[in-house]
């Protein structure tokens, strides 16, 4: 189950609010990713404790949106970050 995976930001990857640009960014080795609202909402829930499914359930309730669509957005987002080596998955 891919939605059972628990995403976690590895050491050296952190969110930061850029006051000058008024924007949330993800700071990582040799890389700065400017986050849109969706990305920021997802990363704000990534705590190394909860699975993708749990985060999806929480965000679905919060934004009154379909849970399945949100889960698939999260999978796409975290898998892309994992390819870039700025996201990992906690051991089950």
């Amino acid at each position, binding site marked *: 189950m891919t939605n059972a995976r628990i995403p976690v930001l590895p050491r050296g990857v952190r969110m*930061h609010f850029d006051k000058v640009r008024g924007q949330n960014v993800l*700071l990582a080795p*040799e890389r*700065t990713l400017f986050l849109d609202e969706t990305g920021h909402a997802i990363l704000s829930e990534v705590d190394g404790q909860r699975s993708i499914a749990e985060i999806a359930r929480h965000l679905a309730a919060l934004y009154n949106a379909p849970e399945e669509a949100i889960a698939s957005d999260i999978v796409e987002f975290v898998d892309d970050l994992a390819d870039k*080596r700025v996201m990992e998955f906690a051991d089950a």
Partner: protein
Amino acid sequence: MRDAVPVPPPIAMLAELTHRCPLSCPYCSNPVELTARQKELDTATWLDVFQQAADMGVLQVHISGGEPASRRDLVDLVKGARDAGLYVNLITSGVGLTDARLHELDAAGVDHIQLSLQGITAESADWIGGYKGAFKRKMVVADKIAEIGFPLTLNAVMHRHNLDDLPEMINMAKRLGARRIEVACVQFQGWALKNRGMLQPTREQVDTAKRVVARAREEERGTLVFDFVPPDYYADFPKACMGGWGSTGLNITPDGRVLPCHAAETIPSLTFQSVAEASLSDIWYRGAAFAAYRGTDWMPDICQGCDRRDIDFGGCRCQAMAVAGDAAAADPVCRKSPHRPLVDATLETEARRSGSGEFAYRKFA
């Protein structure tokens, strides 16, 4: 009056704390005229520069040199940069970093370490770095970095004499648990330009390296990220140097001059302001050196009318200076450049050489 395009704030700053270094690599990116220790900025000035940088929108500081560990106040500077709100990337040869110092740097908040690699064996690496014993010490430091758990990028500087070892370099990155490897083929400025005949790879080497990187990129997906800087003399189009002059990054020299890129001082028509005479923000937004090649107005017609104008921004100004003698020319590696024959002639001569000879090692005048 033309429409003023707003200048964006810089994202990254390269802080060259010092030109001192135990190694003397013949492709060092420091200028040929090195700055002596007595002229280096003091601790308080660097801390102020970090704060100014963060206040104007810089997000990442790349703390480099020379060897930044040659500065006794390195730990304080790292801490100050973190306190200012910057992401701290330490760019080091590893030589001179002790176990105790690494732990202090960990506590001070180093976010990421970029470790340079000159070669895959002691014999080759020590010859290239001009320092016997450097490789052995570097390997001890590399293991310690992995043990502490710093995110690691291995910066493999590649050229004629080690490009064939690329697969072993990739294996080393994996063994050390690096998340990234930069396969950085030497760019010919400064010291590297002096040693170009010795460093220039052959076309066969470059073609093989491209295949090795492409295959490894697939095999290591999700494990190791590749950043490949190919040797641009062999390219058809120039690199997007600095992502465009004065658009995303700036560089501070050990004595506080503020440059649009580390090699900008090779352009004799430019004068550079120091952090002692103006604020960083003033220099970035209003300095003449930053305005010189910012945007597209400065470009020659062949760049202005080119569909790659906003992709590679005319390439590297310093390379145009070095090869064509004109910093406002199109980068001579470009197939469309009238100066491309100069690059081809150089390749013709240099790639035919045996590659044997002596390096002109980097040294203080």
